[in-house]
């Protein structure tokens, strides 16, 4: 086998080269799609194929973004929505997991509550929106309640399922070592379900955005959902489109943050469970 200076075989070098080539191709294709999408949109607007009053266009969106930024409102709106979402998915995941722990500790309680959980899970949570507004007033409280309503029950069901699926042989082993329920929970069930918990968190990020925007549609004076509704009511499609793009970026950044958290957690736990 021929070898070069680094001692790599021709075949290996070929493999590495084709790998780099494929990687570059993927990145290039992604950039082309992004630039192409906005480019064609802009072009269509400039050539009057589409009515940019209705469809908006990238140049007008950039203008809108500048105005939002210079008026100082941009980060207020992003901040409000992000805060509502973060509170929503944090409380949803933590409270949901705690309820799941309670159900795991008491199989009887879990059997009693089962039909209620099923009904609550099937109920379209947006129907509860008006109730929250009446109870909690037209503000962030009602919106956070909305995010919780959407994420809480799913979390309880998923996490509880995960807990119950813990290998019974491992539970048996823990018992023979003299472990009580508390130790089985902390030393076996929780670490064994790290993936379940992180997945619940990931799902809840998405659900909380739905809850927050939904809530802001119904009632609010600030936030990205508010901007979208306001923009559509006064027929400023530039504002609506711009906000949707900001929303997409904010949600993606937050999701990446959760992925980083997951990486950190798994590293902390030593091994991915």
């Amino acid at each position, binding site marked *: 086998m021929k070898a070069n200076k680094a001692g790599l075989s021709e075949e290996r070098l070929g493999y590495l080269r084709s790998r780099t080539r494929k990687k570059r191709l993927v990145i290039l294709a992604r950039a082309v799609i992004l630039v192409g999408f906005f480019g064609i949109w802009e072009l269509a607007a400039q050539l009057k194929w589409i009515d940019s009053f209705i469809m908006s266009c990238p140049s007008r969106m950039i203008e809108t973004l500048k105005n939002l930024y210079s008026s100082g409102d941009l980060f207020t709106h992003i901040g409000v929505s992000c805060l509502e979402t973060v509170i929503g998915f944090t409380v949803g995941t933590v409270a949901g997991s705690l309820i799941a722990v309670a159900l795991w500790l008491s199989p009887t309680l879990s059997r009693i509550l089962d039909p209620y959980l099923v009904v609550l899970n099937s109920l379209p949570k947006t129907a509860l929106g008006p109730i929250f507004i009446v109870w909690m007033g037209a503000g962030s409280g009602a919106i956070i309640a909305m995010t919780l309503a959407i994420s809480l029950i799913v979390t309880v069901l998923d996490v509880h399922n995960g807990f119950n699926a813990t290998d019974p042989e*491992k539970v048996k082993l823990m018992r*023979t070592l003299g472990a009580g329920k508390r130790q089985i929970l902390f030393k076996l069930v929780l670490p064994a379900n790290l993936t379940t918990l992180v997945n619940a968190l990931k799902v809840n990020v998405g659900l909380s955005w739905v809850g927050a925007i939904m809530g802001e549609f119904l009632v609010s004076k600030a936030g990205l959902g508010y901007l979208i509704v306001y923009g559509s009511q006064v027929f400023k499609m530039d504002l609506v489109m711009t906000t949707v793009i900001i929303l997409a970026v904010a949600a993606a950044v937050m999701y990446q943050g959760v992925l980083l958290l997951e990486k950190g957690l798994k590293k902390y736990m030593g091994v991915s469970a």
Partner: protein
Amino acid sequence: MSVSVEGVKKTYQSPEGEISAVEDISLEIRDGEFISVVGPSGCGKSTLLSIIAGLDKPSAGRVVINGEEIHGPNGEVGFMPQKDQLFPWRTIWANVTLGLEIQGKKTKERLEHVRELLRRYGLGEFMKKTPGQLSGGMRQRCALIRTLATDPELLLLDEPFSALDYQTRLSVSDDIYTIIKQEKKTAILVTHDISESISMSDRVVVLTGRPSRIRSIHSLDLFSGLTPIERRNHPEFRSYFNAIWGELDESK
């Protein structure tokens, strides 16, 4: 440590009715003795082990260990499950010290004892590794050391080699046998593998099908002092095998 199983019966209740798993088993196990329990699959072998471990309550009868009746798991009986059941999120060291951690006995001397066990049985340099990085045989040895760490005098082995391939199983059972004898533990091994039972134990208890009773007990004094591999090559090995196999075949 002597174990005395006295008239143990176990019936399982379910909405469909009751199932009698174990019917009147009495057995005396001497200090330092290695006993195997074999029986047709689905007989109450594992149930019997669970009762001795205190995980299951007998419907009648009792288990007395060193003069004291067993009422629940107390961490004094070491249990080695099917498969190694090492926790993948813990290092080997954290796995083998799990029992001490649970019982709040992580004293300097005990930890040193565990370290010594790991070293003695060839796992000293793998303490910081994770279970996934070890071979099946090494994992099984870790599982035994996890059981030995709390220094139980009685070991219960529930088909501990069933997940290993044949080659590994032979060498691991040799290792485990040696370790148990060196550490002077009393052991009860449940298995469906007749050769395994003859190669490792002082006595083989043959159970009938469900509800299980003791069909016969074979004393293997002839083999005392021999390792499992040596026993497998002994001319008398075959005749014990045939006798036990015949009994199991009849009770189907």
